[in-house]
């Protein structure tokens, strides 16, 4: 009798305990889910805030006017052109060098200490803060090579900055090309380079393109490295040569953000819309390419 009641009590107690543990666990789903959506909510919130404060400034005039002392007349013309110049030169440099480096690492490098050093070095370079690349660009490109705070100096700096992440992306997609393709090509008498050029690179192209686009997206938003090399000038002309001084959209955003007048802040918000549309287009393109070629 006493035994059975205490057993029943224990059973009730443990059932209650299990129920409580289950309840806590069920609750935790909401807590963790809420924390996850917090980041996404912030993202949406920032987008809305920017559009509200900068949307009204956005117009064709804003995109095609030079900067000005008067907030209402200032525009993004020279910074959009400067961004296009710098990114264009950066892309031209980074694509061949990144692919060549990745091909060498994956296809030609003799396995050994040198290869390990190169790989380790790339991993470390990817973690170097952008402002340090700016210091490097300032001393080597601006001062030593005498390029001044020019488009070319900026592009070289950004090129070195995004090279590691582009190489790593290219490496990954090259290593995912099935080795049966290589074996088949080599067995038919192709040389190693012919194999790489005709079979490996076409197979790896979508992955490489994704990596390059994401890297360019990062370069498009870079500010600190470019300010470091001295690209913080008032530019009221159209860039025509890689040796011109320049400004970019992120630099212009910084310039307008640190001014106390509300009207300039609105310009900053409008420029952020422009920059974010560009960056999101890059990222979306990369995502689409990745999704489309995933199954192959």
């Amino acid at each position, binding site marked *: 009798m006493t035994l059975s009641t205490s057993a029943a009590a224990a059973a009730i107690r443990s059932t209650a305990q299990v129920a409580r*543990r289950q309840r806590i*666990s069920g609750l*935790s*789903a909401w807590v*963790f*889910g809420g*924390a*996850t*959506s*917090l*980041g*996404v909510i912030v*993202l949406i919130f*920032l987008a809305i805030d920017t559009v509200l404060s900068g949307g009204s400034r956005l117009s064709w005039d804003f995109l095609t006017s030079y900067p000005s002392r008067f907030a209402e007349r200032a525009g993004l013309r020279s910074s959009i052109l400067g961004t296009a110049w710098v990114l264009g030169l950066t892309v031209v440099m980074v694509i*061949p*060098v990144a692919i*060549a*480096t990745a091909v*060498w*690492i994956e296809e*030609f490098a003799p396995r050994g200490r040198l290869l390990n*050093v*190169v790989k380790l*070095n*790339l*991993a*470390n*370079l990817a*973690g*170097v*803060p*952008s*402002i*340090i690349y700016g*210091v*490097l660009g300032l*001393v*080597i490109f601006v*001062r030593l090579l005498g390029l001044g705070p020019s488009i070319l100096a900026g592009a070289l700096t950004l090129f070195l900055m995004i*090279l590691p992440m582009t190489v790593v992306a290219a490496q990954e997609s090259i290593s995912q090309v099935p080795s049966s393709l290589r074996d088949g090509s080599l067995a038919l008498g192709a*040389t190693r*380079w012919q194999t790489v050029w005709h079979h490996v690179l076409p197979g790896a192209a979508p992955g490489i393109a994704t990596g390059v686009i994401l890297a360019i*997206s*990062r370069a*498009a*938003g*870079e*500010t*600190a490295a470019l300010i*470091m090399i001295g690209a913080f000038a008032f530019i009221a002309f159209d860039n025509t040569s890689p040796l011109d001084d320049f400004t970019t959209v992120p630099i212009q*955003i*910084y310039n307008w*953000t640190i001014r106390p007048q509300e009207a300039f*802040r609105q310009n*900053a918000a409008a420029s*952020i819309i422009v*920059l*974010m549309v560009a*960056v*999101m287009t890059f990222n979306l393109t990369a995502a689409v390419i990745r999704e489309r070629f995933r199954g192959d």
Partner: protein
Amino acid sequence: MAARGFAGDAGAPIARRLRKQRFGRPVESLIVASLWLCAGISLITTALIIGVLARETVTFFRDVSFAEFFLDTNWQPLFNPISFGIWELVAGTVNVVFWSLVLALPIGLASAIYLSEYAHPRTRKILKPLLEALAGVPTVVYAYFALTFITQDVLQPLLGNNISFFNSLGASIVMAVMILPTIASISEDAMASVPEELREGAYGLGATRLEVATRVVVPAALSGIIASILLAISRAVGETMIVAVAAGSTPNLTLSPLESIQTMTGYMLQVALGDAARGSVEYNSLFAVGAMLALMTFFFNVVGQLLVRRFREVYA
């Protein structure tokens, strides 16, 4: 002898052609050589970074003593008495990194646990890229929000005069958003690579979902989680625009989030924007601070990478 001679006679052209194919293709070896040259660019970059920072830092220490740099607690490069005690700038960096971690760590880990252990695969497929999109936002955009939205519209009405206009809290909050995807994404990768058997064993013993997550998966993925935190710290230490815009330019030996401070990166940007003459002590201090910054991020990166490699070796 005769046989060899015969084979040699008939095989000579083939042998010659084969030899040509292996060694006689100047174009092919030229291509491989140029590939190797391109691969060398990244090695040269590292050498240049070390060389530039080391050279200019040595110049700096000709004017400023080691003892002053590491023992003085006052960073005052512009006004008399001029002094270069690095700790105020290091404190500024630690201040922002600390408060951003306080915010990003719980949220980031909760996100990682949710994505890895709770979310339906379809939800996860939508949420993870959205979270990672936060890492793609240019930092100057974050800087704008830190100053205009967080500080002006939220913190100042909330805290009034207790908080200065430029303050570390505004920068830290936005920095937390910036490093959130680093923590969430890498931790989630680590948790996803924990073998399913471990979870099934725990469920079999009657553990709830929360218990499986916190007592089985998190401990098993711990080295990956720590790696994600170290990489996030490294990113936060090197971040420039947010702190330069929102945290102020007052070197300050404090961990209070309400005060105006200056970080190492913030100081470097200030020198770049200022008109310090080339060769002056102020100009050279840029490189000494840069060297300190590079060493700090290098340390966090290397330890983080070692840990990432370790957890990959265990489960992959």
